[in-house]
């Protein structure tokens, strides 16, 4: 049970950084930390004690596999996380070229 709580603490660290930091790069880092904590939580839930990796080798008779479904979902989520991070970094570098700073308090034109 302690591993679930540690995952949740990692998520909270990311959330705290997301709300309190003022630097665009730090905000992107916080978002990816939150993503990572969710991935590890999903894979932890699907783990079975004494299970083997979900690959059929035919060497063992009547094997127990760990749950392959969360692994397949997390595989999709990792690639989407890469796409999001690349997009955010591209927007950050565009904003830096226009405003010469990463400070979100200085980027006034974003206010609605």
């Amino acid at each position: 049970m302690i591993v679930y709580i540690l995952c949740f603490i990692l998520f909270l660290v990311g959330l705290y950084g997301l709300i309190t930091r003022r630097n665009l790069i730090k905000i992107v880092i916080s978002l990816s930390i939150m993503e990572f904590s969710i991935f590890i939580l999903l894979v932890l839930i699907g783990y079975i004690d004494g299970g083997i990796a979900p690959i059929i080798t035919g060497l063992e008779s009547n094997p127990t596999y760990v749950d392959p479904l969360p692994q397949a979902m997390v595989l999709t989520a990792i690639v989407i996380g890469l796409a999001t991070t690349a997009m955010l970094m591209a927007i950050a570098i565009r904003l830096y070229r226009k405003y010469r700073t990463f400070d979100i308090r200085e980027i006034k034109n974003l206010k609605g």
Partner: protein
Amino acid sequence: MELTLSILLGFMIIGAIFALHAKDLLSAIIAAGIVGYSLVICFLLLKAPDLAIVQIVVETITLIIMVAVILDSTREELKVKIDRRQIINISLALVFMLVLVFFFIQAISNLNPFGEHTLRMASAYVGETAAKTGSANLVTGILFDFRGYDTLGEATILFTAALGVLTILRIKGRK
């Protein structure tokens, strides 16, 4: 097993806290790399080799993109004074955290203890993947056969993101 994972997760938390408080953006990014690469080791310990392979590639690409952005701009971290707005932000973050802790406590009582997961939906997949798809790797069989539309959507997202990055970086902005 649980002890090893706890130590790794503690290490990840320390790396994340350092990444948020580093004075230099380059060291913040390297510290975020600690979190990503520890995740690879966690996946290997949790018997998920496919995820470990994908995560190590994705983490390396992310680090390269971030270092390229930092070297092209500035490494200086902003100087943040504790003003009224910052206090409002910190208290807002604490309120959000308290709400999330409340829901987490409710959710964790419904979860099985670590290592005692029962297969529900996946039991059909585990039994039938080899016969129906001919794939020896269950994760690949689920990803590309039973849930092929998910993978199609993922490829669409990746393509759209690549188009978006190209568009954002190419156009000339108004001064």
